[in-house]
């Protein structure tokens, strides 16, 4: 079982390393969106501190959503996905492997980059740590939920916009929990409850999303 996971993760990581530009583009998008907000709302430090958690979280959410198309599209185009459906390993497990690999190249860099962006907004250090923690717990959920949307819209025309239409409403709980964790930290309130709820959501998503995404892949390749 772990061998399957290791093989799938290794393979997907290798493939995305060959297309480094895609990974870099999503990160650039994240930086750009977050940097546009101060230009849009004005440089008032108090205001920036107030909106920072929401802005950074929404930017991270959009950036991770942009990357969703890559999760299955290449394998779908070259027929590798059909082989995976026929493989003896459970499809749900393969989906987990692909989601982990996808998170490592899309979620993890966002998480590491977020504190730098937060400095632009003058967030206190405590809040920075909570921001990283909330992204560490939240972005995997985004990838897992997103995998369902990506699998459903496989090979459909205009699938990019459609995926966002399907997936964004489902992202709402993660966004709420993530931003309010950072808000609480910036306000000096304990953040344990927020992070626990994020963890609970992640476990829930980890248990159900790969299974649903596998069913969606079977439907799309039927």
């Amino acid at each position, binding site marked *: 079982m772990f061998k399957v996971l290791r093989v799938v993760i290794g393979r997907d990581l290798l493939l995305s390393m060959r297309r480094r530009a895609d990974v870099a583009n999503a990160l650039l998008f994240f930086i750009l969106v977050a940097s546009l907000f101060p230009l849009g709302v004005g440089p008032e430090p108090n205001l920036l501190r107030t909106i920072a958690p929401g802005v950074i979280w929404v930017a991270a959410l959009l950036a991770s959503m942009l990357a969703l198309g890559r999760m299955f599209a290449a394998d779908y185009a070259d027929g590798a996905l059909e082989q995976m459906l026929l493989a003896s390993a459970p499809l749900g497990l393969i989906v987990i492997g692909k989601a982990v690999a996808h998170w490592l190249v899309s979620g993890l860099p966002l998480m590491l980059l977020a504190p730098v962006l937060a400095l632009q907004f003058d967030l206190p250090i405590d809040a920075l740590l909570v921001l990283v923690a909330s992204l560490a717990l939240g972005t995997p959920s985004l990838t897992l939920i997103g995998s*369902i949307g990506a699998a*459903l*819209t496989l090979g*459909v*025309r*205009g*699938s990019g916009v*459609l995926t966002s*239409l*399907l997936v*964004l*409403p*489902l992202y*709402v*709980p993660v966004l*709420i*929990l993530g931003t*309010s964790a950072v*808000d*609480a930290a910036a306000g000096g309130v304990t953040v344990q409850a927020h992070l626990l*709820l994020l963890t609970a*959501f992640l476990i*829930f998503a980890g248990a*159900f999303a790969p299974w*649903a995404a596998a*069913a*969606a892949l079977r*439907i*799309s390749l*039927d």
Partner: protein
Amino acid sequence: MSRPSEAAQSPRPSFGGRINWFKYSSPQSFFPLAGAAIPWFAAAAALFCVAGLYVSFFVAPTDQQQGEAYRIIFIHVPAAWMSMFIYLVMAFWAGAGLVFNTRLSGMMASALAPTGALFTFVALWTGALWGKPTWGAWWVWDARLTSELILLFLYFGFIALTAAIDDPRRADRAAALFALVGVINIPIIYFSVQWWNTLHQGASVSLTRAPTMAATMFAGMILMALGFWMYSIAAAFIRVRCIILERERNTEWVAEYMREQR
């Protein structure tokens, strides 16, 4: 599991009182059934709506706190009920379609979606028009309103997904899976927004309704809800008949039906 279309084409006499429910799950045998039922549901919808409107405008007394503005809730609350109820029914058909692989289930689900979206929009619109005089704001980010908005997005996602996929079988199954994922998510969204709302207790307004509701007010809401319910069934049946004809246009029974029509 016997294939529904086969079961419908060879109606065996069923002994021992066993009813073959799958007989009615084929589009071919459901089509005339729905056609016969539509006028009854439409008439019931009109009847209940007229009675409901009469009660809500002429029988129910003026609310002491909200004045006449409260009369909006006679469509707001039933529309909100229907928006959620239709989504549940849609998810039920979607799940049935995925489990039993019946064609009609997917058609029913996609026939319900536009009507559900309509009632969701009505609930939001009337909520805004009720909120302005009552709370002083068109929109409040309260758990119920926000969940209703997300519900509208889920309906739109369902409709868009069905429309984007050319193969109707795949479209039905993909949209069905999305509906089921949505039905799991709605409670989570509701509770997360509610929890978030209690954190942001700034300029919030008390959302509790009047504690005692007059029996006539309740009767008005129930009558309107029944009217909307019957209307939804009628609209969904009309739409499912359109979908059946569109998808089965090349079958023998549709050709036969067209010959009978003239």
